[in-house]
């Protein structure tokens, strides 16, 4: 087929809405975007319907600034209701024109033509739509009079239609914005200022003091550091490199000023400068209240929420020599283009913004901001740059769904609402692009935007009203979020009318109907209540079964969007059922029935899905979600402490779509969310008689409200574990902070023994391969390199700091470097150091170096070790001087210590035991120096022996658990378990090596298997005498009260520690009930693991754990450690509060 220019349909200002190509395929253009709600499919249906085309012959292009008309941001559920109108009219125009042309070409009267699947028939002849394009480049203007197809003839609209984007998404072929790859693309990672989530004040854009590019310029993949005002970012070849550079970059910022007290949300919001806007003054509010029989004053508080897109925002920019292309997931491509023009000084037409689907956004998240980030970095480096925000960056900086305060005063007269005053404060705006604020391209002054007026007038006939919106600028970045201000406003309206119904002794549904004038609204309320099985009631029914209380709640709203007085979208009514545990305060939303009137239904499945989505999302918002703040910024950085609703918590949802095929279609993207909070609050009242006026309705808030209302206190079985016994802690504290095991520089300046002369050791070639192999194994068994290698330092060159109760010492360089290592040490000097703790120069070594164990080594092993160490790679590295407290830095102290605690003699075999046992004992007690960590130490830091030998100790915050005696036996340690553990780092059902022990086991991989078996045999013999018949069962986890820490565990930890499926590869290998970090005498180990995570050595097949230092506060970490103790070690005393 020859290439023919398409036939376009444009509006009067020349914007193209449709184009028909020669093959008969139609492309529609819409300035709005698909936020994951399926409007792309619905718009295709509308076009295909009007043109009588099969759905697959219509393509929709959404939100591409070079091709689609500017129809404003995709907000307020307007796409179907507003943006589809010109599109449908364009399709009708095209259809009429095609029929007209066919009439002439087929020489037939118009009424004799039939259309079928994009072909126009008359008798035996037919023409395809594409055949009817006449002149190249021709276009039609939208004819506002072109007849629209009557609803009765619809065959696509109103029918179940599968989502068109789903097949590709299901096989990983859909190109989300996160998946876009541009040729030559590199990666940027932003470094945000410390005033996270703030958007006004003189510090915004002016707080960056400096940074040290030289410190990171040598890192792998480095391309550039980009700075403009407070905008700072790193560009690198790979995304992980860019992140590593950004995180390593030393940056100095000014300290931001504090936020007002966000703990007192209502007080703080009311205290901000605001401009009142009076929107409804029906009757006289003062007279109306005076004349009322009963007046109630109520305040309702709505928290800050996260949009919480599952995918943090991402964008790719190509500066393209000043004609930039931006790939974005924005909700507002045209608005973003304007912002980028302001940012760059380019005319908007020079910028091409191409929209891809992102993760669902429900409002203004960071999608636009990251576009600015990418463009700034691409301009700086002259290459396309992709920026992927982290979860923490998205969460901290996204413009939040704003907190809102609603104060209501209303009066009842003769059983009807007589007066209603509402004042509302909504501190939000449109979320100015962050790049504009950080670079100073726009000012940092507060910017109020009047959007607090959505559904601000209650949908009831009330003779006296005064409705006032107090417009105010954001306190922290805030912008529209699903339901905007209509959801909080309706929370107030619909809770208040419920209270009034109770005051009037009327059924809440009947009471509403009495006040509703609009017949469609009345019909919706009536039908929803009836189909949902609403039980008439006058006052709360207080249904109870044991400690559970059950209730039903009703609420209804018409979502009004756009500037006041606005446009009505679909109306929705909720009937919901709740079950409340009156002791724990947990609210279960068990069922939600939603009736909705949306006029013409385009795609019934799509409408139902939007209802389901609104119900589940807002149920979570109402029951659990709120953003918290510290003195300066929002605090949440991950899902750990922000609970969105989970699969096991969502209610059953039923829907009722009111049939109105002859009414225009109304937006459904948000309506079903709007009644949520009020319906749930009203149901809680029906169940308990308690009114919840501040969301979210968390267990803590419910417990407090129930206690205040006289409900019983929390049952014992749901309480946290009892308080600890203090005396034990003082004793255990003595064991804290003891020592590792390393050869440390002399604790004394003056030698107490004679110096041994430096020598030139024998050349490595003089040692046999067998000897060197023997030495290598001794070296590995002794785990020497672990203690003698600093973090990030050269292998075996020392410098690892060892904190001891008596000061800090640094491990020595054990490479054969002649100046700073052992390169001039004779075997005699080495042997003396290993057995007696005396350095070559005669100074005493601190007993952190376990010479007390090494003294028992055989001469053969000692020489093999010496030989092997002379073949290590020499590294020049001075050891720092120790910093010791008196009296350990006195010359006689160490010598005296040796006299007390050290016996320098070879370990003799026990003839009564097997050769294997003796071999194991030798390895455990001498070379392996297990007691250095696993034996408790006395007050002078000497390891205890006898019954205390190998019975567990704290070492540098890590718990080295009992590996001998009854406690080890009770955990199930036997020969097989020890052998498995030493060989793989994992003893099934007992332990996985973590922390320093993981490195020990990694080194043991170099050791002969028979030797590890021997060690297992010996260790098992130390537990055998004390062994109970069966190991103690893992204690059952204690039931825990639902607190913020409990939810933190469920959100952040349970995925790996209480996995939902067996065998999750990234799950923990040992249940927390057996974790020695949880069973340790003090919380340090658990806190270290939570903070730093675990990184298993490459040689071992063990699991890693991410660290939470960047996500959680120290208080959260401390609380979580104590929670783990109480839940998983209920048989042990609780840890003291920090």
């Amino acid at each position: 087929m020859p290439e023919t220019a398409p036939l376009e349909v444009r509006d009067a200002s020349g914007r193209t809405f449709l184009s028909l190509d020669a093959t008969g395929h139609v492309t529609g253009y819409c300035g709005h975007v698909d936020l994951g709600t399926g409007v792309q499919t619905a718009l295709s249906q509308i076009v295909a319907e009007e043109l009588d085309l099969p759905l697959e012959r219509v393509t929709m292009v959404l939100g591409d600034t070079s091709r689609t008309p500017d129809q404003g941001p995709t907000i307020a559920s307007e796409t179907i209701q507003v943006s589809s109108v010109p599109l449908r009219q364009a399709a009708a125009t095209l259809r009429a024109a095609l029929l007209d042309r066919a009439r002439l070409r087929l020489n037939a009267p118009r009424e004799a033509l039939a259309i079928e699947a994009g072909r126009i028939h008359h008798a035996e002849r037919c023409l395809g739509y594409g055949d009817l394009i006449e002149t190249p480049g021709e276009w039609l203007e939208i004819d506002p009079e072109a007849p629209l197809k009557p609803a009765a003839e619809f065959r696509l609209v109103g029918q179940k239609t599968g989502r068109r984007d789903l097949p590709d998404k299901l096989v990983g072929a859909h190109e989300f914005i996160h998946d876009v790859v541009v040729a030559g693309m590199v990666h940027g990672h932003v470094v945000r200022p410390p005033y996270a989530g703030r958007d006004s004040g003189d510090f915004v854009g002016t707080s960056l003091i400096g940074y040290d590019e030289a410190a990171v310029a040598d890192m792998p993949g480095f391309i550039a550091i980009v700075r403009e005002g407070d905008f700072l970012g790193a560009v690198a070849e790979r995304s992980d490199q860019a992140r590593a550079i950004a995180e390593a970059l030393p940056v100095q910022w000014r300290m931001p000023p504090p936020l007002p007290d966000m703990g007192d949300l209502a007080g703080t919001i009311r205290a901000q400068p605001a401009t009142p806007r009076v929107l409804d003054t029906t009757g006289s509010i003062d007279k109306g209240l005076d004349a009322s029989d009963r007046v109630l004053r109520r305040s309702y508080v709505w928290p800050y929420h996260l949009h919480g897109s599952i995918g943090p925002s991402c964008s790719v920019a190509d500066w393209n020599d000043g004609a930039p292309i931006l790939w974005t997931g924005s909700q507002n491509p045209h608005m973003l283009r304007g912002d980028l023009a302001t940012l760059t000084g380019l005319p908007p037409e020079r910028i091409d913004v191409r929209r891809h689907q992102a993760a669902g956004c429900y409002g203004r998240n960071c999608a636009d901001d990251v576009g600015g980030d990418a463009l700034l970095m691409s301009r700086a480096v002259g290459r396309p740059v992709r920026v992927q925000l982290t979860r923490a960056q998205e969460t901290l900086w996204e413009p939040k769904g704003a907190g809102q305060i609603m104060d209501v005063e209303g009066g009842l007269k003769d059983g009807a609402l007589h007066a209603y005053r509402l004042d509302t404060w909504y501190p939000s705006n449109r979320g100015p692009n962050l790049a504009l604020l950080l670079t100073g391209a726009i000012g940092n002054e507060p910017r109020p935007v009047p959007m607090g007026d959505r559904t601000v007038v209650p949908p009831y006939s009330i003779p006296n009203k005064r409705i006032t919106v107090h417009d105010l600028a954001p306190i922290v970045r805030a912008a529209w979020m699903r339901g905007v201000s209509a959801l909080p406003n309706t929370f107030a309206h619909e809770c208040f009318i419920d209270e009034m119904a109770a005051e009037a002794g009327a059924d809440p549904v009947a009471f509403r109907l009495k006040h509703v004038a609009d017949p469609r609204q009345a019909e919706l309320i009536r039908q929803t209540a009836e189909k949902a099985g609403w039980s008439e009631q006058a006052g709360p029914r207080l249904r109870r079964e044991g400690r559970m209380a059950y209730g039903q709640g009703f609420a209804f709203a018409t979502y009004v969007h756009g500037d006041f007085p606005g446009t009505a979208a679909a109306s929705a009514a909720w009937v919901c059922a709740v079950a409340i545990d009156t002791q724990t305060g947990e609210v279960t939303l068990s069922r939600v029935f939603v009736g909705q009137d949306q006029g013409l239904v385009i795609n019934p499945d799509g409408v139902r899905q939007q209802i389901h989505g609104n119900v589940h999302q807002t149920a979570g918002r109402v029951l659990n979600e709120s953003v918290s703040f510290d003195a300066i910024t929002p605090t949440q950085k991950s899902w750990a402490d922000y609970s969105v609703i989970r699969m096991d918590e969502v209610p059953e949802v039923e829907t009722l779509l009111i049939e109105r095929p002859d009414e225009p279609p109304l937006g459904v993207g948000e309506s079903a969310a709007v009644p949520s909070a009020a319906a749930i609050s009203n149901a809680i009242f029906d169940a308990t008689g308690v009114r919840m006026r501040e969301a979210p309705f968390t267990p803590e808030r419910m417990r407090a409200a129930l206690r205040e209302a006289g409900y019983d206190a929390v049952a014992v079985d749901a309480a946290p574990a009892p308080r600890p016994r203090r005396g034990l802690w003082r004793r255990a504290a003595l064991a804290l902070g003891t020592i590792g095991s390393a050869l440390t520089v002399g604790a004394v300046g003056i030698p107490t023994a004679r110096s041994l002369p430096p020598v030139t050791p024998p050349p490595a070639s003089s040692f046999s391969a067998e000897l060197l192999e023997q030495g290598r194994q001794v070296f590995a068994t002794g785990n020497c390199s672990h203690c003698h290698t600093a973090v990030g330092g050269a292998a075996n060159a020392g410098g690892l700091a060892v904190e001891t109760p008596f000061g800090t010492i640094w491990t020595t360089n054990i490479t054969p470097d002649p100046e700073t290592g052992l390169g001039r040490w004779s075997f005699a000097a080495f042997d003396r150091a290993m057995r007696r703790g005396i350095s070559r120069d005669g100074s005493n070594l601190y007993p952190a170096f376990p010479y007390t164990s090494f003294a028992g080594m055989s001469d053969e092993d000692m020489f093999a070790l010496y030989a092997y160490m002379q073949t290590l790679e020499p590294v020049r590295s001075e050891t720092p001087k120790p910093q010791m407290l008196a009296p350990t830095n006195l010359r006689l102290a160490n010598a005296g210590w040796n006299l007390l605690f050290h016996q320098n003699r070879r370990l003799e075999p026990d003839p009564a035991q097997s050769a294997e046992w003796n071999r194991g004992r030798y390895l455990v007690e001498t070379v392996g120096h297990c007691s250095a960590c696993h034996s408790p130490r006395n007050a002078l830091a000497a390891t205890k022996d006898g019954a205390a030998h190998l019975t567990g100790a704290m070492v540098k915050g890590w718990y080295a658990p009992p590996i001998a005696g009854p406690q080890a036996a009770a955990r199930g340690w036997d020969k097989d378990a020890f052998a498995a553990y030493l060989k793989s780092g994992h003893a099934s059902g007992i332990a996985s090596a973590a922390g320093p022990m993981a490195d020990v086991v990694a080194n043991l991989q170099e050791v002969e298997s028979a030797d590890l078996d021997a060690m297992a045999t010996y260790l098992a013999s130390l537990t055998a005498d004390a062994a109970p018949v069966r190991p103690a069962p893992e204690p059952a986890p204690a039931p825990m009260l639902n607190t913020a820490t409990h939810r933190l565990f469920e959100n952040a930890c349970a995925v790996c520690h209480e996995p939902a499926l067996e065998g999750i590869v990234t799950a923990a290998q040992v249940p927390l009930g057996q974790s020695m970090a949880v069973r340790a005498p003090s919380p340090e180990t658990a806190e270290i693991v939570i903070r730093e995570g675990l990184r298993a050595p490459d040689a071992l097949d063990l699991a890693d754990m991410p660290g939470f230092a960047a996500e959680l506060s120290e208080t959260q970490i401390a609380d979580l450690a104590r929670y783990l103790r109480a839940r998983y070690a209920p048989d042990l005393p609780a840890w003291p509060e920090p």
Partner: protein
Amino acid sequence: MTGPVATTITTTINGAEHRIDRADGRMLLDVLRDDLGLTGAKYGCGMAQCGACTVLVDGRPARACVLRTGRVAGRNITTLEGLAEPDGRLHPVQQAFLECEGAQCGYCLNGMVMTTLALLADTPAPTEAEIRDALRHNLCRCGTHTEIIASARRAAELMGDRNA
């Protein structure tokens, strides 16, 4: 006894063998998405909290955002791209999510599909409670839970048909 740890590992991804550098400690998710162009698994949180990055390792689910490449040496990895038949026929679990429209934005879809697959391997005919429980650590923000649960039920039926 083992020798020194190798700096590259070999792993099988969707049936094809790949050699991957382990030395820089990158996460499997970054390697799949950035190096191999397998973008079905999504970055959501980087902390194993949301499940958008789920892949199967030897048939068991794994959170690829916290799984270092060094940990998958010699393992068999399946991603969303590896489920359908070579002729394009969808895996029954994918087919079920298509029929029941178990996605709105579809960003969590990968994790939902992969986790459902693992669930059905253990429990071929799960109850609704078992489905909800198995998917409780996969977050969906659009509120598609109703359709996802229905998809998982349908997947069990389709798998049953295939195995019958």
